[in-house]
């Protein structure tokens, strides 16, 4: 009747189609218990090509260092984009059974998503077990499996702090708030004094921020999950506290609710619409390039606390290098992932030239890193501030194996309720039930508490 209809439906099918070959993907060999030094030496002297997918700009520097150390190994870098696009490509290649890289960049919240499908290689047999002491404890917990597996090597992190406009604070006589209560009062006072300015912007679809805020408050919604048993507790006391707090401020109209990383938001940062940005350790450098016109006006401080006198924070962002089980060059891939993230020169370059916030204890204590005094922050030692914050992040925070779905559901329930002035606590229940329903459809045994 109408070929165009069939054709268009076919198009949808063609998009979904290639992702369906999971059934015919070949099974990777089981990982060995131990790989001897002799085997590693042999592999590292065999001419090999490694495929590495990453979005980190300038990663060629680290690759060059690696190739200098291991001249027989050649690393091909592919920039496969960042975020959802990157993971969609990875999943497609993994399901198709070919075309997947040996090593790829994975954010922390995506590590369980790839380990549950048995796509990641446990790096313990390749010497990664010995690296634990080099990394900050909470970071190491993020890449560790329930049975002690090492699923990836940490590359950078995002302990959360607060960047604020010292000039706006001074103009209105606002002290840097140390508690969330003081923060709320300052928000009211500032907006009253200048209706054009908000103390901060709560980006209602930014699930990663909300997770970090929950982390700081002591919430651990998926903590205690193991394999097929999933704990879902998105309506905990802590979650209610965080939700009530932000929905309250948004309803009062004393914080703005613009979508972040949008043109509107960039403009607002430059115009001084927001007096703070509650962000992560990667924020300072990001802000320097996106709000260049405000140079010298910003300062960094720890996040406000729920209890006066506390010093706790959460994490937002950061990523790892993971090796895929389908790799035919497992040893070389595992050595590469470890090298770029632990070699002193490689990690120092990352921290000081690519501005990735380091997860290694050595760098966080290195004056060459912490002693930097960027002009944008009036010469304040911003790295030192965030290095101290990094010590205060709780190790108790677990990601579910489908965090991208959790973020999407968050945005459509809680995020929307906060932005549109709806019933935010009711939306929290909705979020819980959506995630639970999804988890059950995915075959998990869900324990709600």
């Amino acid at each position: 009747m109408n070929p165009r209809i069939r054709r268009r439906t076919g198009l949808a099918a063609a998009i979904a189609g290639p992702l369906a070959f999971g059934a015919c993907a070949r099974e990777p060999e089981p990982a060995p218990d131990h790989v001897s030094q002799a085997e590693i030496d042999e592999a590292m002297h065999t001419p090999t090509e490694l495929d590495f997918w990453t979005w980190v700009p300038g990663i060629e520097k680290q690759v060059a260092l690696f190739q200098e150390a291991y001249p027989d190994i050649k690393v091909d870098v592919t920039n496969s984009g960042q975020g959802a696009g990157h993971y969609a490509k990875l999943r497609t290649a993994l399901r198709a059974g070919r075309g997947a890289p040996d090593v790829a960049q994975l954010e922390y919240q995506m590590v369980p998503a790839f380990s549950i499908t048995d796509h990641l290689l446990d790096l313990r047999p390749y010497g990664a077990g010995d690296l634990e002491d080099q990394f900050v404890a909470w970071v190491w917990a993020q890449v560790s499996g329930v049975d002690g597996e090492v699923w990836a090597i940490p590359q950078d992190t995002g302990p959360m702090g607060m960047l604020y406009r010292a000039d706006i604070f001074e103009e209105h006589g606002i002290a840097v708030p140390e508690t969330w209560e003081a923060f709320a009062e300052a928000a009211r006072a500032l907006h009253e004094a200048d209706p054009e300015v908000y103390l901060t912007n709560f980006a209602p679809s930014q699930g990663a921020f909300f997770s970090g805020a929950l982390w700081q408050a002591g919430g651990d919604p998926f903590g205690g999950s193991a394999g097929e048993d999933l704990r879902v507790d998105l309506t905990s006391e802590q979650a209610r506290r965080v939700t009530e707090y932000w929905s309250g401020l948004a309803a009062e109209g004393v914080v703005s609710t613009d979508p972040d990383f949008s043109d509107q938001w960039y403009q607002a940062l430059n115009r001084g619409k927001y007096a703070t940005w509650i962000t992560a350790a990667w924020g300072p450098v990001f802000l320097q390039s996106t709000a260049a016109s405000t140079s010298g006006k910003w300062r960094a401080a720890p996040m406000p606390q729920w209890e006066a006198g506390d010093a706790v924070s959460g994490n937002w962002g950061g990523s790892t290098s993971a090796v895929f089980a389908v790799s035919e060059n497992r040893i070389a891939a595992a050595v590469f992932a470890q090298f770029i993230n632990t070699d002193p020169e490689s990690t120092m370059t990352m921290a000081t030239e690519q501005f990735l916030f380091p997860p290694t204890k050595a760098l966080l204590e290195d004056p060459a890193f912490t002693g930097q005094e960027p002009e944008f922050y009036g010469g304040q030692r911003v790295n030192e501030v965030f290095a101290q914050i990094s010590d205060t992040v709780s190790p108790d925070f677990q990601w579910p194996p489908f965090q991208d779905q959790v973020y999407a559901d968050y945005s459509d329930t809680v995020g929307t309720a906060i932005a549109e002035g709806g019933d935010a606590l009711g939306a929290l229940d909705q979020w819980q039930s959506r995630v639970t329903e999804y988890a059950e459809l995915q075959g998990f045994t869900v324990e709600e508490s």
Partner: protein
Amino acid sequence: MSAETTTATAPQRGRGAKGRKGPRYAKTGYLFVGPFMIAFTAMFLVPLAYAAYFSLFREQLVGGSVFVGFENYARAFTDPLLFEGLGRVALFFLIQVPIMLAMALFFALALDSGLLRLAKTVRLGIFLPYAVPSVVAALMWGYLYGPDFGPIAQLADKIGATAPDFLGADLMLGSLANVVFWEFTGYNMILLYAALRAVPTELYEAAAVDGAGPWRIAWSIKIPSLRPALLLCLIFSVIGSFQLFNEPSLMKALAPNVIDASYTPNLYAYNLAFVGQEYNYSAAVSFVLGFVIMAGSYLFMFVTNRRSRS
């Protein structure tokens, strides 16, 4: 228009030829359509069949892939998110398409009247937005709609007024309709204009002899003879509206809490597959959407055919 007439008469002619002249012509015919059929089968039919097969399974993060029969379809038919999306695009269709087609018709008649100066320039000007990729169009309009930085908002600010919140929950559907209107009015106009050029001039002469003025000619000759072309435009619009994806997908970055993951059925299918990894269910949703569109298009053809017969 011509497509309609050929599909209507071709089967009869084919049957006649087969009966009298034998299969020799048929063979040559197959040779001609062969390359197309191969590509069509490989690129459309096979993936389509595969997706249909695929929609009968459910692959879970835990437990792998299991055959579930029509369970995904049962879920789709009771999925409030899918129906909300379908309702939304249906509303979009009802608001946007009549305005777009009326304007396209108006422009086509105006161009055909021969009374316009610079007719070619006007025609090209109205058609030009269609040449702009819809992604670019959506980004451009997203900028124009911007609440703080957008030119409309700034202009309103200059004269002391407040621009409406184009990206807010109340106006979003209208804002999207406007983008689609901008993109596709010219395209529909060209279809209608081409159909008008195919009307035999004898009809106009006869009408003029009978004393009909330009309005009468437009109403009694031009518009009736546009019926097949209008039907074609309408069916394209049914498909386009129900498949709405690019515009809301791009506007989502500007208004993430207005456009949710299931704002339109296509967006929903996309998010099911690429965010939730529910590929099987996504395939089922795509098929349900395909059936809705097929049913909708058929309904329009049925209604208009019956009317033209009576």
